[in-house]
């Protein structure tokens, strides 16, 4: 039994495919031994700590086909290895899907956004410190959760949908994409799947070791955002301890179609309250057809946290989430 602090990259293979076919073949061949790398901002920490030990990295950022933002028949398609900075600064995204541009601009720090990719931000692993420390908890394949126990430190953990593991979805762009009703384009060497953003993420009761439905041989290649919610009224807010680097304590992404002060349709999604982005469908249906007002916002806020099950230290997320929903609906 020894303890040593590591911070240097371990010996590991690196593949840098330049075309899709090679990348998918590699993913297929290497399976669980291959680690997909976008910007690497959620990769190198794991590897340096020796807490995940894949045999090889497959770097995807040199595949031009999976990079960039383009218009498609219905909306836009963003390559999975497009950087967050490129998304935040892209005129097309800014003008039609400002929700995503704002969310991408709130991730981590400028340098991380400069290399961090959309795919990486969506697929990043849970940030629970026990898990990141390399403890053999449920999420790491063990049989215990250290965070959800009488004295566990769980200020940043889940209000909803916990099942043994109480980690939350750390992404800022994920709630935005769910609120935009985006579709994930997932490819493997044998097939391509189109998965609604909402179904892309998976909670611990269904899969305690993965945060998305991606299989070992699959790669998220692009995200398609339909025109349905283009130019809608958007609201994004991220509340974190620090205004740089930190993951959200709670974030919210919402799209509204408003006509004459009346909400015709809405999609409201909160992050960091559950292992997946939490879409507030009951709130959406409650406000549909209603006039925007302080009262509506307040009642919707209350409704948003029904069923919340706070842990020892995260009670504050209940009022915080209520307030963010309120602010979004108030507009």
């Amino acid at each position, binding site marked *: 039994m020894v303890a040593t602090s590591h*911070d*240097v*990259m*371990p*010996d*590991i*293979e*690196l*593949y*840098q*495919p*330049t*075309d899709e076919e*090679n990348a998918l*073949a*590699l993913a297929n*061949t290497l399976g669980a031994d291959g680690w997909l790398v976008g*910007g*690497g*901002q959620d990769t*190198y*920490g794991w*590897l*340096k700590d020796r807490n995940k030990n894949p045999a090889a*990295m497959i*770097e995807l*950022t*040199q595949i031009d086909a999976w990079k960039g933002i383009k218009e498609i028949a219905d909306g836009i398609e963003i390559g999975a290895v497009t950087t967050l*900075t490129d998304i935040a600064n892209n005129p097309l995204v800014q003008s039609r899907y400002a929700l995503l541009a704002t969310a991408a601009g709130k991730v*981590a*720090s*400028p*340098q*991380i956004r*400069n*290399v961090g990719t959309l795919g990486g931000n969506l697929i990043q692993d849970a940030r629970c410190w026990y898990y990141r420390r390399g403890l053999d908890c449920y999420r790491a394949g063990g049989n215990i959760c250290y965070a959800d126990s009488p004295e566990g430190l769980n200020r940043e953990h889940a209000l909803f949908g916990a099942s043994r593991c109480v980690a939350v979805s750390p992404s800022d762009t994920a709630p935005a994409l769910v609120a935009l009703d985006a579709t994930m384009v997932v490819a493997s060497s044998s097939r391509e799947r189109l998965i609604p953003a909402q179904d892309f993420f998976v909670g611990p009761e269904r899969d305690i070791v993965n945060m998305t439905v991606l299989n070992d041989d699959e790669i998220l290649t692009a995200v398609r955002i339909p025109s349905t919610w283009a130019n809608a009224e958007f609201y994004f807010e991220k509340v974190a301890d620090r*205004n*740089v*680097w930190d993951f959200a304590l709670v974030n919210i992404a919402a799209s509204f179609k408003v006509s004459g002060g009346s909400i015709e349709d809405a999609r409201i999604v909160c992050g960091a309250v559950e292992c997946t982005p939490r879409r507030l469908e009951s709130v959406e249906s409650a406000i549909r057809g209603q006039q925007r007002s302080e009262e509506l916002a307040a009642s919707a806020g209350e409704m948003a946290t029904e069923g919340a099950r706070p842990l020892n230290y995260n009670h504050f997320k209940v009022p915080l989430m209520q307030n963010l929903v309120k602010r979004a609906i108030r507009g």
Partner: protein
Amino acid sequence: MNPKLTRRRFIKGVIASGAAATTTTMWYAANGQDRPTGFVERLIRINVNGQERSVDVAPQETLASTLRYKLGLTGTKLGCNRGECGACTVLVDDTPTYACSVLTHSMKFARIETVEGLEAPNGDLHAVQQGFIDQLSPQCGYCTPGQVMSAVGLLRANPNPTREEARQAMAGNICRCGSYDSYLDGVMRAAEIG
């Protein structure tokens, strides 16, 4: 293994004098890496501070590691080695980047600039360096090279930033001494003299 796979990391190169043998040895030692068996295969060329440098680079090697231990560019500091502080910030194609959190092999086609590359050939300091001196921006100085590089990146993209714009652009650099105010004074001064 699928023989059709392109293993692009095996780039052929020539052994050039860019990296002195001692510094390469240093890198292996400091990073605890095995000396590679396919030594020549891992020789890549990277463009650092306007010079093409041939370096033997392990596949997993971070840029900060290459810069510090192979090219002797110790101005790039490791404060945390995990993208949480910014002390290792360098410019990659003019974009501020944490050198501790990118692979050198991903930099093969990029233009890398470190704090050592900013001075003019005649020894004149870069406007940002001069601005930081004028305003006595650094305190302990450990984060300074990173702060300098972020500021240079900002001023290239936006030569006349507002103080708020400067603050947003510099936000990925921690200064534990808390010299943010003086760094912003330095950036504004640099924009003035630059």
